[in-house]
């Protein structure tokens, strides 16, 4: 069997990072974000990237690594707050930004991976997001045409992978990762744990291995973006 498991993130990206390519990166903020792979992508030096990701990283974390080196030419995101570096780059004109509603973004990634070239949604009708796009009525209700996105490279984060690239996610760290695993022509998964083939219950697999070309052990610890807790004393 063709080996999918790579020794480290640098090897996992060897030969597949090129200037000008489109890269999807999973995660909702820092949750379920492929931090080791983003770091390795920075180290490839690939530039003029179009990055498809719900967020643009936080200061010093995630895609901010690629923003600080100027490797990103364009972002396609639903929310880029929480990130001063991005703001500065955007306001100075150093980076292009395409806003995309969060659900439309997820659906566009899935659609690209599913061979759906375009789809009609009510989301964004009558807003700037529909400007320049076709509007068509279905049952009298206007819908806007959105297109599927296919990425040259998708970087995703999962909890467990087996040697065949089957993935299982954990809790809300799943988010965009299954959709982007589908949307990438080449998908590389970073995981907490790699297990032998046959270790996973085939009914529990979230992303079948056909969508995953390479797998690597994560080396960066999970981080919490906004720690919000309640006191045990108050609650009891």
């Amino acid at each position, binding site marked *: 069997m063709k080996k999918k498991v790579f020794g480290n993130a640098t090897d996992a990206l060897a030969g597949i990072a090129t200037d000008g390519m489109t890269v999807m990166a999973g995660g909702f903020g820092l949750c379920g974000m492929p931090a080791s792979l983003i770091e390795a992508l920075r180290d490839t030096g690939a530039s003029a990237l179009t990055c498809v990701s719900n967020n643009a990283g936080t200061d010093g974390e995630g895609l901010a690594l690629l923003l600080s080196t100027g490797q990103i030419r364009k972002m396609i995101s639903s929310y880029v707050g929480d990130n001063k570096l991005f703001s500065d780059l955007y306001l100075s004109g150093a980076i292009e930004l395409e806003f995309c*509603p969060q659900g439309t973004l997820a*659906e566009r990634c899935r659609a690209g991976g599913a061979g759906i070239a375009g789809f009609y949604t009510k989301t964004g009708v009558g807003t700037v997001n529909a400007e320049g796009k076709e509007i068509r009525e279905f049952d009298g209700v206007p819908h806007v045409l959105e297109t599927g996105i296919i990425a040259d490279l998708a970087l995703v984060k999962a909890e467990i992978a087996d040697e065949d690239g089957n993935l299982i*996610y954990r809790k*809300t760290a799943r988010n965009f990762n299954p959709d982007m695993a589908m949307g990438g022509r080449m998908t590389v998964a970073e995981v907490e744990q790699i297990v032998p083939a046959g270790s996973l219950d085939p009914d529990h697999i979230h992303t079948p291995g056909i969508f995953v070309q390479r797998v690597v052990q994560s080396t960066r610890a999970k981080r919490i973006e*906004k720690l919000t807790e*309640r006191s045990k004393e108050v609650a009891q």
Partner: protein
Amino acid sequence: MSWSRDEMAAKAAEEIEDGFYVNLGIGIPTLVANHIPADRDLILQSENGMLGMGPFPFEGEADPDLINAGKQTITELDRTSYFSSSTSFAMIRGGHIDLAILGTMEVAQNGDIANWMIPGKLVKGMGGGMDLVAGAKRVVVITDHVTKSGAPKLLKQCTLPLTGQGVVKRIITDLGIFDVKGEGLAVAEIAPGVSREQIQKATDAALLAWPDKELA
């Protein structure tokens, strides 16, 4: 005397029927969860991929893999399920969410809502807002009746870029409750001690009807 934020949230909570699947926006809407009547059960959706959202974790028990759409750490319940972003928005866009309760910058008498950007100011993005207002079965807005500088937020027409067109059904403010009627708003309830004149002065939108019984 007008309604406090918690009183507004309690009014919004009355919208919730037993077994409703509900998405709460950030800000005042998050308070709604504290005011659910005891005989009703609701399931909170978090659009980053979770149904059955629980409260914040106890100190020291936060899980980096378990956050809400505001990126705050939360907990799961015995009814929780997790799913992908595309499935989450399939729920939203497909009309499976019974109720979305959101804050806003502006709302118009035809149900238009503008709550994601102010031209000239730094834009953060619409996140899942456009999907929610377009997809939820019912969209209710909770907002202060006027801006911090005293300008009306309930308008004939929105001035800011829209989040959605003709989507809001009801508006709950510190001064009262307003139903969208296309050509204007019908006042469904007035907060105690608030006068018609006070509402009229603070509202740009046309007011078409007043409640039969006014609390005074």
